């Protein structure tokens, strides 16, 4: 292991990617909390959101130009909002077309899984067809050269913006779930949907809100991810699996658990990739998941939150 500089560099890189994993993981965890269902098409919501933000920011930035200062910040915000809206639309459509009809019929759990995989393949192939099969970059919103030094770690403005935005979103969701009336009803449905319904909570509305909330986060996260790693129709799969891992690691159904799991996974990957070999990143991440689950089957912060809706 190298010097303190490298340790802080790897920590910061890990936290940046980890925060993005956490943002996506919230979508898995929220839906699982409410419906006891793993939304396997969530990774495509992430991908579609990234393209939404990408096209929006492309429309405003002429090719080759690198805007500066406030313009950049404004463009990031615009891309984020567009990405979030695209993600939310995709998540809503998913709930409406792939899950709601099944729920109406009281279909078995397995049907949801098949439906999710089908919807995921559909979105994946449609995106490949529509957006091309090459990676597409988000316009350069920041000159990469501007670097801030924190404990010897060199950080580009872009990394700072990404990590900052992701953390702000995580805090906002935590507040939403823990401290608002809407969050209260989400938690009530998660705990016991039938009972919550009897107490006057509109269960259907809560389910839609949960999906849309997860979609907003995944879409905005997708845009942030594409700023560094470019967008492509295949981009959803790996981060999706990682975020799912993060959600399970933290204890699926638990909002703070998902954040903890995401950050931890990012750190483990960052250090693991440095110490061993970058190609082992995924191996290391999943080994850690298995080890944690052997010791704590419900994840780090996990308690079983509710019964099937």
């Amino acid at each position, binding site marked *: 292991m190298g010097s303190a500089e490298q340790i802080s560099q790897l920590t910061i890189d890990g936290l940046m990617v980890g925060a993005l994993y956490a943002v996506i993981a919230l979508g898995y965890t929220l839906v699982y909390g409410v419906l006891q269902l793993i939304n396997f098409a969530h990774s495509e919501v992430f991908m579609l959101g990234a393209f939404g933000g990408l096209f929006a920011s492309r429309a405003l930035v002429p090719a080759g130009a690198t805007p500066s200062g406030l313009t950049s910040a404004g463009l990031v915000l615009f891309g984020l909002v567009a990405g979030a809206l695209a993600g939310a639309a995709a998540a809503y459509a998913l709930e409406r077309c792939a899950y709601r009809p099944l729920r109406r019929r009281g279909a078995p759990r397995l049907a949801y899984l098949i439906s999710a995989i089908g919807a995921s393949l559909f979105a994946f192939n449609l995106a490949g067809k529509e957006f091309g099969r090459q990676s597409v970059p988000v316009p*350069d919103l920041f000159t990469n050269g501007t670097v801030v030094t924190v404990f010897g770690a060199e950080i580009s403005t872009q990394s700072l913006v990404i990590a900052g935005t992701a953390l702000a979103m995580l805090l906002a969701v935590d507040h939403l779930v823990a401290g608002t009336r809407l969050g209260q009803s989400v938690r009530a449905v998660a705990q016991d949907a039938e009972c919550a319904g009897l107490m006057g909570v509109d269960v259907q509305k809560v389910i839609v809100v949960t999906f849309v909330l997860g979609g907003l986060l995944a879409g905005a996260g997708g845009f942030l991810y594409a700023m560094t*790693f470019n967008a492509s129709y295949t981009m959803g799969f790996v981060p999706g699996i990682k975020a799912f891992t993060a959600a399970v690691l933290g204890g699926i159904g638990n909002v703070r658990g998902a954040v903890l799991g995401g950050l931890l996974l990012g750190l483990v990957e960052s250090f693991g990739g*440095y110490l061993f070999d970058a190609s082992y990143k995924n191996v290391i991440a999943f080994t850690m998941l298995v080890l944690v689950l052997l010791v704590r089957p419900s994840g780090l912060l996990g308690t079983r939150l509710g019964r099937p809706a």
Partner: protein
Amino acid sequence: MTGSPRTPRPGTRRAGVLRPVAGVVAGLAMVGAALTACGGDSNESGTKEFLIGFQGPLSGENQQLGINAYNGVLTAIDLANRTGGLPFTLRIVASDDQGVPEQGPTAAQKLIDNPDVVAVVGPVFSAPTKASEPLYSQTGLLSVSPSATNPKLTDLGFTSFYRVIAPDTVQGAGAAEYLAKVVKAKRVYSLDDRSEYGTGLSGAVELGLKQAGVAYAHDGINPTKDYTSQATKIMADGADAVYYSGYYSDFALLTKALRSKGYDGAILSGDGSNDDQYIRQAGAANAEGTLITCPCSDANTDPAAAGFVSEYKKVNSGLKPGTYSGEAYDATNAIVSVLRKLGTGASRESVLADFGSVDFPGVTKRIRFERNGDVRGSTVYVYEVKDGQRVVLGPVSSLVKP
């Protein structure tokens, strides 16, 4: 898509309720016939028709390199049909291998199964070439790669394989010479993508560095989106130059990661990154000043290739030739020169038997082959990204002169 669906003869449709159904069936059959690339022996006007196969990535992450080559083949065929005065017509039939070895044999088999294909241009990438060539050799179907540069490919005993591009031993030696004498690197970080192409190139670069007395570190990384920890590793290593042996979509992300950490050494890659897509995906600001070596010249700035460039633009609706377009054009013309000699009686066997003695001036170089299928005498060029454009600095041999 094999087999040839028959188009129903007009006038045989039944009236009444069956009519719409028959119409749909007829429509589908016609679409099928149009999509199926199996022509008869002769076209409508009765002249003999030969098919030239193309195998390369027409979809997938690095498809641009395949498309460049495909357009080059198309240009050569179009030109030959229009002005060649040939006693036969030529047509291209494409087979997409996505640039991955798993798809190689399937793509090759598709061309082999088509009896009208007399020769193939491709495969474009090294890994699919290694996977496909056993099939071509078994059936004696000539394949001429415009761009598969892995050095070992011509040592594996394939009997029908030729390439019009120099192997990576040539490119690696050139790159190492450039790193040692022009970049004046003290220590080079050689990174490959662990592919057939990447490992071949990185091995050749490292051999050249060793001979030039330049220290180097070797590392391999499977294509991944996240190069941040790899970039930290490179920074910690203290190397003053990075040479990446892999394709542009990964080189773009690696460049991005290095620049975001403020890496100030030289950043280089090989012919797999030699495409404008690299600049697009890395971002013009990040790509600025990075260097690319290629055993290929840039047809767009080569006065000797002006005719080719204008034909290419005409055939491909205004597009400029890209990396491997010129090589694919030359490979096709080499095949056409053999067909011209053999006339309408040409067969797979006779084309393969005569190809070794090809000797004609191509747009990229004079096309003559060694016994093992390698093209004779090649130059390595260095490109630099300047103001968001790839610019040829010149051949390594002229750049290292004092």
